């Protein structure tokens, strides 16, 4: 019955997969083309989009967004790292404090946190700064500082969790080896535990940074002049709302897209010593 089958070479076999792939490729390309066409012929006035894309206030907004994202990320990393280390110290009081911090800041919308920092004067009309004296809170709580504290402390709650998992990912034997060459806990952390935790911590931190870029847009609410804020100022005056929103979308997407390969190379670099 099947004695006559001779299939020495399968390269002539008709693969259904290829056919499906061609069909789906054509389908997807057609869909994308149709979408682009629909946007192009829509009510959106593209000359406004292209005009405002590189306008000075928007570029300043891009710079302000990057400045805030980087500053808040740095603050958040410092907080997160400190709290993760404190949490691992074993003191139950500090553990509870850290757990409470994470709960509070992860449990409320960032926008509320920003508004509360910005309006801290309602609670503390004056703040006493060591070595400087008492200042009026409203003078101190500029949009920049409020956004920095709001975004940084919120981010810190997430980074605490990331750092905690990074620290616990390092084998306990590494810490014991540190002890046996006379290192204190902090020195061991600095020289051995943290460098090793970095591998685990870098990918989620990269994701958090990308989230932070977009989160920065919330600080427009408290007058921090980032991209969205400056775009709003333009559309409040000229009513070209959608066009300016597309401009902001373009810039966020650009920043994020530029950062992704950076993240990739950073991860690769960190992993270098390991595999090679």
């Amino acid at each position, binding site marked *: 019955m099947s004695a006559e089958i001779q299939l020495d*070479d399968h390269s002539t076999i008709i693969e259904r997969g290829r056919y499906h792939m061609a069909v789906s490729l054509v389908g997807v390309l057609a869909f994308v083309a149709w979408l682009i066409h629909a946007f192009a012929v829509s009510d959106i006035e593209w000359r406004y989009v292209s005009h405002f894309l590189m306008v000075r206030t928007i570029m300043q907004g891009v710079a302000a967004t990057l400045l805030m994202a980087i500053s808040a990320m740095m603050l958040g990393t410092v907080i997160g790292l400190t709290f993760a280390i404190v949490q691992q110290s074993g003191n139950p009081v500090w553990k509870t404090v850290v757990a409470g911090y994470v709960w509070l800041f992860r449990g409320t919308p960032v926008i509320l946190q920003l508004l509360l920092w910005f309006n801290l004067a309602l609670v503390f009309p004056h703040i006493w700064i060591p070595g400087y004296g008492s200042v009026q809170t409203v003078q101190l709580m500029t949009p920049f500082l409020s956004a920095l504290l709001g975004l940084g402390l919120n981010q810190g709650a997430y980074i605490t969790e990331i750092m905690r998992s990074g620290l616990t990912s390092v084998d306990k034997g590494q810490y014991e080896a540190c002890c046996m060459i006379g290192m204190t806990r902090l020195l061991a952390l600095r020289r051995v535990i943290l460098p090793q935790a970095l591998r685990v911590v870098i990918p989620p931190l990269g994701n958090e940074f990308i989230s932070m870029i977009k989160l920065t847009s919330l600080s427009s609410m408290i007058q921090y002049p980032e991209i969205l804020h400056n775009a709003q100022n333009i559309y409040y005056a000229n009513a070209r709302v959608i066009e300016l929103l597309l401009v902001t979308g373009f810039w966020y997407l650009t920043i994020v897209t530029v950062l992704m390969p950076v993240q990739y190379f950073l991860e690769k670099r960190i992993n270098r010593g390991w595999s090679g």
Partner: protein
Amino acid sequence: MTATDIAAIPASPILEVRNLSKSYGSTSILKGVSCTLNQGDVMCVLGGSGSGKTTLLRCIAQLERYQGGSVVVDGELMGIAAAKSGRFYRLSERQIARQRLETGMVFQKFNLFSHMTAVQNVMEGPLHVLSVPPAEARREACRLLEWVGLGERMEHYPAQLSGGQQQRVAIARALAMKPKVMLFDEPTSALDPESVGRVLAVMKQVAATGMSMIVVTHEMGFAREVASQVVFMDQGAIVENAPSAQFFSAPSHPRAADFLASTLGARAQTN
């Protein structure tokens, strides 16, 4: 058990592998392998590490694509079919899934469904692929588990079973689909010595029901006792294919002779 059904089929080549060739990229893994398994026979596949035994079994089971040759189970060409034009086309995933019912496979690493109890593992195929009614599927699954000596452990999860117990559940799971050929890929090499004996005993039991089997193994005792035919592979080719008695008494290929000497020698040393 399934013995009666299978015994009813007249003895004839139940499996034919013709000129199978397979490569990953530019490295050739199987270089035109051909062999035939008769109904009710047990073929043992021997060979050194990396000689392509696992790959051969996986190609027969259609778990790998091969670049040349064909596999015919009980007269049915696997994985491909002739088009009217005279050319061949690849079968759809659904058709290949149906064809795989002809072969049962027991893996080196058991691969039991870890979120299901032993009896659920065995019932899974009959219930959801063959659409057997639940009560009947369970009854048959219990019978099979009893038969492999696990009547007491039916409601245990794989993580609660020893390696040998897991492998016996895996055999029961394969048998529950009533395949025409059973493929075993080093079923005992991940087990402790005690478990090995139990699993081999169950495999003998399966062979005794008249099941056609291909067994990749390093267990020479089992091969000598149970196999009707021994195939010896080296570097992706079958270099010797002989009746069991002949192979063990006088292997003709020098590689096979070497292999036999070293394996039996090592055994002798340990005992």
